C-alpha cells in the first residue's frame, strides 16, 4: 500500500474541503449498452478512447502520493476490458477503488472474472433504475434488469462489495423509489450502498432533453482522467453528437498527476461555490 500524503498543496486542499478526494478514470468509452441518458453517448460502436493499465496504475500511485483519498473507474463499460479486474485490484494497493459497471457482463460463467474484485478496498457500483424490469430496460436496454438481479447476489456471494446506483429523472426522494429500495435490499445490498442521483443534462441526455441542467459550479470538482486529458468532474468528459465536450477540460496533460491536480485546484479557486449539493450530482 502506498503511503498516502498528508501534507502538500493537494492534500491540504482536500483536507480543507476545497477539492474532493476522489480521482476518476474513464477506462474506455465503448459499451455493450446504449442507455437513453448516457453522458458519453456510449454504445458498441463508440470510439474507445481507452486508457492503458500502465497509465491507470500510474495515476493510482501518484494520486496516493499527492494526498487523494480514493479512486473511481468508469466508462463506457469498464468490464469490456479483459484486463480491468486485475488492474483494479492493483490500483486498490494504493487507494480504495469504486468501479462503475452495468453489471451485465457478470452473468453465467463470466462471474469468475469478478474474483480479483473480491478484496478490501474495492467496490463495484452497478446501475439499476427501477424495480420494474420493463421501465428499467426501456432506458438501459433489453434484459438489463434480469442480468443485474442475477449478477448482484452472485457478486456478493463471491465476496465483492456491491453498490447500486439509481439514476432518476424524478425527485431524489420520490416515494416511488421505495419498491426499488426494497428490491436492492433483498439483493443483499446495504441501504447505505444504494445511491440515487439525477440525470445530468449532458451527452445523450442533453440531446433528448432529459435531466437537470448543470454548469461547472454545479458539478463536483473531482479530478477526472481520460485518454483525452484531465477534466473538472466525472460529468465533464461527455460526448454530444459525436463530439467530446471541452467546456470542462482542465489540461491535456495527465501525468505527472500533479499537473492536472494543480490546474484543477487553480480553477476551483477561481470559481464561486456551486450548487452540487442541492442538485444531488455525485
Amino acid at each position: 500500500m502506498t503511503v498516502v500524503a498528508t501534507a502538500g498543496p493537494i492534500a491540504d486542499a482536500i483536507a480543507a474541503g476545497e477539492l474532493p478526494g476522489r480521482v476518476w478514470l474513464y477506462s474506455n468509452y465503448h459499451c455493450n449498452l446504449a442507455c437513453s441518458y448516457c453522458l458519453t453517448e456510449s454504445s458498441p460502436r463508440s470510439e474507445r478512447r481507452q486508457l492503458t493499465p500502465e497509465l491507470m496504475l500510474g495515476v493510482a500511485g501518484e494520486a496516493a502520493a499527492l494526498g487523494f483519498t480514493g479512486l473511481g473507474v468508469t466508462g463506457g463499460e469498464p468490464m469490456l476490458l479483459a484486463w480491468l479486474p486485475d488492474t483494479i485490484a492493483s490500483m486498490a494497493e494504493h487507494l480504495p477503488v469504486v468501479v462503475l459497471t452495468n453489471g451485465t457482463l457478470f452473468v453465467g460463467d463470466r462471474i469468475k472474472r469478478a474474483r480479483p474484485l473480491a478484496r478490501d478496498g474495492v467496490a463495484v457500483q452497478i446501475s439499476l433504475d427501477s424495480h420494474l424490469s420493463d421501465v428499467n430496460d426501456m432506458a438501459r436496454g433489453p434484459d438489463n434488469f434480469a442480468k443485474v438481479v442475477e449478477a448482484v447476489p452472485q457478486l456478493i456471494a463471491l465476496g465483492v462489495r456491491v453498490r447500486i446506483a439509481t439514476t432518476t429523472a424524478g425527485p431524489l426522494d420520490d416515494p416511488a423509489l421505495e419498491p426499488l429500495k426494497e428490491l436492492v435490499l433483498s439483493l443483499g445490498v446495504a441501504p447505505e450502498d444504494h445511491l440515487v442521483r439525477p440525470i445530468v443534462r449532458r451527452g445523450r441526455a442533453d440531446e433528448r432533453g432529459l435531466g437537470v441542467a448543470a454548469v461547472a459550479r454545479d458539478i463536483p470538482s473531482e479530478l477526472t482522467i481520460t485518454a483525452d486529458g484531465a477534466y473538472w468532474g466525472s460529468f465533464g468528459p461527455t460526448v454530444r453528437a459525436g463530439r467530446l465536450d471541452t467546456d470542462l477540460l482542465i489540461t491535456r496533460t495527465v501525468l505527472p498527476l500533479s499537473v492536472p491536480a494543480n490546474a484543477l485546484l487553480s480553477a476551483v479557486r477561481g470559481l464561486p461555490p456551486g450548487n452540487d449539493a442541492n442538485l444531488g450530482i455525485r
Partner: protein
Amino acid sequence: MSDDVAMARVELLDVANAPISAEAYFDGGDPGPIVAALASVPELLGPTLGFVGAALGDGAAASRHKEFAILRTSVLQGCRYCVTAHTAVSLDAGLDVAEIRALRGDVSIESAFHDERERALIGWIDAMAGATGPVPDDVWTSAREHWPAHVLVELSVTIGATMFLNRFATGFELPTSPDVETRLASAGLT
C-alpha cells in the same frame, strides 16, 4: 462553434466550448482563431501567449521595426493569414502603403525605403527569416553599424515567434477575419 470552423483544419473553440481553465481568454468575446485553436490544449495558452505577446509587443525596438520583422518574416514563410493580419497592424503602426507593398514583396525594398538604417535592418531580417545557415558577414556588419545588439536580439525573438505563428496559422489553415479583409481592400492592399 465559430462560423470560421469549417475553414480551419482544427476546431476553433468558442465561448460555449472553451475549457474552464481557458475561460478568461474568451471573456471579451471571440478571441480570434489563434487562441480559439490553441484553446484545445489549454495548458499551452498562458505560456504561448505570454511568449508571443512579449516577442511581438512593445520593447526596445520601435513598433514600426517590429512590424518590419513580423510582416517580412510572414512573407518569407508564405503565411497568408499572418501577412494579411499584419498588413493591417502595420497600417496601425504608421507604415505607408508603399512601405507595406515593399515588405510584402510587391515592389523593391529600395523603392520604398530610403533610410540606410532601415534597409540594413530589413536585409538582416531577410537573412534571419528567409535563409538557413549563418547571417552573411556583410549583412551582419551593416546591421550592427546602425543597430545595437540588444535590438537585434529582441527582433530575433520577434522573428522566431512569428515563424511559430506562421506555421501554426498556415498548417492549420486558420481563417482571416472578414473585417481585416474589408479593411485591406479599402486600402488597396488585398
